[in-house]
C-alpha cells in the first residue's frame, strides 16, 4: 500500500513540477494522471500495490470533496445578491448539457459500433 501511495505521490510531484517549470495552465495532478496512464501503458499491467491504494482512494472519492465543499460558507455574501439567477443558470445548463451530451454520445457510439 505504501508503495502504491509512493507511486501516486511521485507522479503528482512530477506533474506539479512540470506545471511550474513550463508554466502550464493545468493542475499538476491532471498532468500526473496522464503521465501515470502512459507509464501503465508502457508497463502493460497494474502493480498490485498501486491497485490496492488507488481502489481505496477512488472508492472514497466523495469524502475528499467535503473539506472544499464546506468552503462554500466563505462565499455566502457573494452569492447573496444574485443567488437565484445563478441557481437558475446552473440548473438549466446542467439539464441541457446532460440531455444533449447523453443523446449525442449514444448516437455517435452506435455509429462507431456499427462500423466494427
Amino acid at each position, binding site marked *: 500500500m505504501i508503495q502504491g501511495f509512493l507511486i501516486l505521490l511521485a507522479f503528482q510531484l512530477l506533474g506539479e513540477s512540470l506545471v511550474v517549470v513550463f508554466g502550464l495552465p493545468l493542475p499538476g495532478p*491532471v498532468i500526473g494522471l496522464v503521465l501515470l496512464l502512459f507509464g501503465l*501503458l508502457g508497463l502493460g499491467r497494474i502493480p498490485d500495490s498501486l491497485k490496492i491504494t488507488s481502489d481505496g482512494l477512488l472508492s472514497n*472519492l466523495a469524502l475528499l470533496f467535503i473539506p472544499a465543499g464546506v*468552503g462554500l460558507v466563505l462565499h455566502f455574501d457573494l452569492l447573496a445578491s444574485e443567488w437565484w439567477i445563478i441557481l437558475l443558470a446552473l440548473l438549466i445548463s446542467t439539464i441541457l448539457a446532460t440531455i444533449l451530451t447523453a443523446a449525442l454520445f449514444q448516437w455517435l457510439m452506435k455509429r462507431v459500433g456499427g462500423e466494427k
Partner: protein
Amino acid sequence: MIIGTDFWVYFAARPLIWIVLTLAVFTLANLLYQRADRSPILHPVLISMVVLILMLLVTGTPYETYFSGAQFIHFLLGPATVALAVPMFQYFDEIRRLWLPILVSSAVGALVASLSAVGVAWLFDARAETLMSVAPKSVTSPIALGIAEKIGGLPSLAAALVLVTGVMGSILVPIILKRMRVEDQAVRGFVLGLTSHGFGTAVALEVGAVAGAFAGLAMGLTGLLTAFLLPIVIG
C-alpha cells in the same frame, strides 16, 4: 458549564476534532444514503456539507480552523486524481475504440454546459463578473480558477459555483439519465464527469469501474477543452 466551554475551546482549536467530525458526519450520511435506497437528493456529500456548515455557523468556528484539520482529507484529492489513471488503463481499449464519440461529445457538451449557463444569467441581467464566474462551472476547480481569472470572473465565486454545480449534477444527472432510459455505464459515467467534474466522477465510481473510467476521462477532457475553447469563444 465553564468546564464544558473550556473543553470545547481546547479541542475545537485542535485539527484532530475536525477530521474526526468530517469522517463521522460522512459515515452517518452514508448510512442514511444506503437506508434511503441511494436517493440522489440525500447524497452523502450534500448532507455532510450542510451538517458541517451548520456546525461551523452554530459554534462560530472560522472556516480556517475547520480547514486546518480537514486539509489532511483535502490533500488526498491530488493522489486520488492521479489514481484515476488506473481505471482508465483498465478500460483503455474501450476508450480507444470510442475516441471519436468521446472527443466530439466532450467538446460539444463542455461548450453547451458553459454557454447555456452564461446565456441564462445574461438573460436575467447578472453582472459581468457573475457571467464570467458562471462560465467555468462544469470544470474541475483547479482549472476553473485559472479560466475565471483569464476571462475576467471572480476566482473565489467561480470556485463556489463549481462546487454547487457538482452537488447539483450529482443529484440531477442520475435522475435525468434514468428518465432517458440510459443504462450504458460508459454513457452514464461520461455525462457525470462532463457536467459535474469530480463530484460526478465520485457518483460514477459508485455505478461501477467502467463508469468511473469514463467519468474521469470526461472530467479531464472538459477541463482541457473548456480552458482552450472558452477564452476563444468569449473573446
